[in-house]
């Protein structure tokens, strides 16, 4: 561990060199030369608060437990100026049983507000050359602003989580613009899109047997249930429909609002109409914007088919710890009784506070519900499992007159580190994501 207040970048580079040399010497035996340094990537995490900073450090540690990597965690300290930083370097050395030791470095920088606008020049001297550099923007990336473009100058890809966008609709619009202007080298990765991968896999899997391929050209209805209200909460739903529409060549004709919170989109696939219905269905265990069910139906050559993929309701979820609400209610300690008390207290006040926040936001911004996401009140739930978003997908397949076939799939725990790892491992240059995003935004805009 190395720490210094008021450090310069040159001092940080010198400290890193010293740490690496010490590691190489320590690992080399008496009569053998040192092993070359191994590094998979540089991850630059841009954070805006202590909570994000800790999350970034935690994810870096988890990834580094298996893969030698360098992480640079940057937190802006608002209201300060200058060119020196409070910096720390933490290294974890791991010794796998069947491989030589690997080293993971986490460099944390607290930067003055002025320097935070120039992340590219700040970080450039620190990144490991020859391996990819990923910029993980943990809040809402400042789309369209120089600050983001400067950061992307040093990155091979921008990683973000559209489920955490504070103004989902507007941010999504900024994101879709970035896709159209981004150069080929820049990859984009959305943890929210990655989170929905199991759903896409299940849908694709249904159409995989050769004798079901013809169903693809027989789809006439798609139904999507999501939580929350308003178009800002329809990112996941729009992603799903955008993905299908762009893959299957559907053309969006129009969108219409119906009764009971149902919004319909009308597509045309050649001469065949495809109706898509978005339905807001409250689910206590899901966060706003999450999908609870997808239904696809149609018929081909006289055979009807229906695929239903539903999220299993048995799920616990760790609430967003950054919520403003948390500051109003302490957790009452980490023991069971304290958490239970806090939970009851929170539940009592939750509705009132949420309504107030929504109303204030609506008054202040004039935007429809869901357009922007007011900070949500959170119930401190007792987490009996790992803090993840573990889920079960229940699939029902109905073909012709045959009895429905039920299939249950458990989705691996998808905490942030696992999602990030999955995204970085599979690559951020994803043409399917890009085209789905554009189709999703076109849909959101019409709705």
């Amino acid at each position, binding site marked *: 561990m190395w720490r210094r207040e008021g450090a310069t970048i040159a001092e940080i580079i010198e400290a890193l060199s010293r740490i690496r040399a010490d590691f190489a010497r320590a690992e080399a035996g008496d009569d053998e030369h040192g092993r070359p340094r191994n590094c998979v990537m540089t991850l630059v995490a841009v954070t805006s608060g202590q909570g994000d900073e800790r999350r970034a450090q935690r994810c870096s540690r988890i990834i580094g437990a298996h893969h030698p990597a360098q992480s640079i965690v940057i937190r802006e300290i608002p209201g300060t100026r200058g060119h020196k930083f409070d910096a720390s370097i933490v290294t974890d050395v791991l010794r796998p049983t069947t491989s030589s030791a690997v080293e993971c470095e986490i460099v944390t920088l607290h930067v003055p507000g002025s320097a935070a606008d120039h992340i590219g020049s700040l970080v450039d001297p620190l990144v490991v050359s020859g391996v990819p550099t990923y910029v993980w923007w943990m809040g809402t990336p400042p789309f369209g602003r120089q600050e983001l473009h400067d950061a992307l100058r040093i990155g091979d890809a921008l990683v973000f989580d559209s489920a955490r966008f504070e103004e989902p609709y507007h941010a999504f619009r900024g994101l879709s613009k970035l896709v159209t202007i981004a150069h080929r080298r820049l990859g984009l990765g959305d943890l929210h899109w990655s989170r929905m991968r199991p759903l896409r*896999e299940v849908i694709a899997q249904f159409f995989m047997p050769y004798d079901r391929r013809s169903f693809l050209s027989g789809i006439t209805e798609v139904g999507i249930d999501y939580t929350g209200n308003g178009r800002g909460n329809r990112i996941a739903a729009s992603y799903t429909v955008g993905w299908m529409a762009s893959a299957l060549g559907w053309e969006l004709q129009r969108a219409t609002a119906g009764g009971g919170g149902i919004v319909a989109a009308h597509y045309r696939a050649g001469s065949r109409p495809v109706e898509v219905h978005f339905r807001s269905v409250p689910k206590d265990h899901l966060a706003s914007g999450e999908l609870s069910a997808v239904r696809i139906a149609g018929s081909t050559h006289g055979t009807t088919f229906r695929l239903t993929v539903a999220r299993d309701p048995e799920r616990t979820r760790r609430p967003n710890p950054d919520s403003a609400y948390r500051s109003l209610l302490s957790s009452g300690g980490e023991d069971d009784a304290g958490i239970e008390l806090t939970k009851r207290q929170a539940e009592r006040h939750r509705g009132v506070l949420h309504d107030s926040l929504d109303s204030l936001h609506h008054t202040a911004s004039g935007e429809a519900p869901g357009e922007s996401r007011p900070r949500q009140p959170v119930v401190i739930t007792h987490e009996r499992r790992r803090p993840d978003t573990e889920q079960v997908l229940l699939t029902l397949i109905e073909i012709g007159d045959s009895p429905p*076939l039920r299939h249950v799939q458990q989705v691996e725990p998808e905490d942030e580190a696992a999602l990030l790892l999955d995204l970085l491992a599979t690559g951020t240059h994803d043409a399917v994501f890009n085209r789905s995003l554009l189709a999703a935004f076109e849909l959101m805009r019409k709705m």
Partner: protein
Amino acid sequence: MKVEEAPNPLAEGLHDYRVADPAVMVIFGATGDLSGRKLLPALYNLARQRSLPAGFAVVGAAMDDMSDDAFRKRASEKIHQFSRTQPIDNRVLDAFLSSLSYVKVDFSRADDFKALAQRLQELDNTRHIGGNRIFYCATPPQTYQLIAQQLQAASLQTGGGFHRIVVEKPFGTDLRSAMELTQTLHNVFSEDSVYRIDHYLGKETVQNILAFRFANSIFEPVWNTNLIDSVQITVAEEIGIEQRGAYYDRAGALRDIVQNHAMQLVALTAMEPPLAFDANAVRDEKVKVLRAIRPLQGEEIARSTVRGQYTKGWVLGEQVAGYREETNVAPDSQTETFAALRLFIDNWRWAGVPFYVRAGKRMPKRVTEIRVQFKRPPHLTFGREAMQEVDPNAITLRIQPEEGISLKFGAKVPSAGLRIRSVTMDFQYMTAFLVDAPEAYERLLLDCMIGDPTLFTRGDEVEAAWKLIDPFEESWRGGMPPLGTYAAGTWGPPSAAELLQADGREWHRP
């Protein structure tokens, strides 16, 4: 466009996500060791990765009298014990177990196969399987013929959907028996429906040999007789024969390891670039290599091969018994537990380059590697003195453990003078990627379900390897060369070192 050719655009971009059609896998010998240790845990892990499609079902078939529930209970226990991923995810396991059922099958009873046919028909109707069937013979090779005949008699290999049979090595014990096995299987299944599984080919690092050679432009130009001095292939195990004495004493290292694993490594190292990474293109090139290996006869076999048997010694700090003291091994056994060969591949690329192959039990450690040794520089620019600590360049492809690739080259030692020393540039498979490698059986089972036989051995490959090995076996049975001995925990008999010393070379110490 035919239905079979219609693409599924929704599958595009789902990286590394390969989906099989719904099918039923019948495991013959489902209560045996292979099924419990490898197959059921691999299928569970495929379910965990969501690679098993809705409708997929497993039918266990064996001699034991057992109910569906008892089979599921047994499967659950084995999965808990042997799964690569732990802890077990109970919801995945429950869903997987619900797709399991059991039918008692005596391989000699036609009625049992009729009962099996009825069960498969029921599953077809209830699980939208479309008649797709995979018959996995997790049974001794002697049963393959009987099983194939009974499947045919019960018409289980006909009808809609695909019908595949999977058989485990050994694929015969010599050329004749291998050809008989192929003929037996071909009486019922076409060659493209026969999946001969050699789990070695399912290892990521074995597949990476092809990626290393053919996805890079800098290695292929030097991968030939112009710059390569020799190739060494080592397949060493620190373990003895464990409980396999009865089998091993009939097989020996040559049949158990060299004929299949080691010859596959030779083929992958020496093959020409295939037109594409598809089953026939890859296997065509491998067969060409096996057929180009110079056959040895008579005295040449005595000069170019070494066989040895371990005696008691020390391995990994423990004293271990000699081979003849192992259970189910004849006290005067002449079976080799170590084999070394010097082979030449008579083609344009490899003319004059010796391939040294060694495989053995009770070696100092478990290691499989391919070492490609390059020629020395034609002129010693820095003089003999400066170069005395430099070995020739070498590329080592480590298959297991510490999977990876290293390149050895000379570098100047930091000092006022000019002294060159060998250094190593390492690539470690385990830490270089952000994903974990699947277990070989997971990869191969999924390949079989998908219908991709690239990593399975084709009949002509098997026969080409036996054609090469048979003369060695014959000569060795006649005592040529004589059986050497080596203390457990050493790198084989002294004659193994002499084999290379005669050529002015020495074995690389892995």
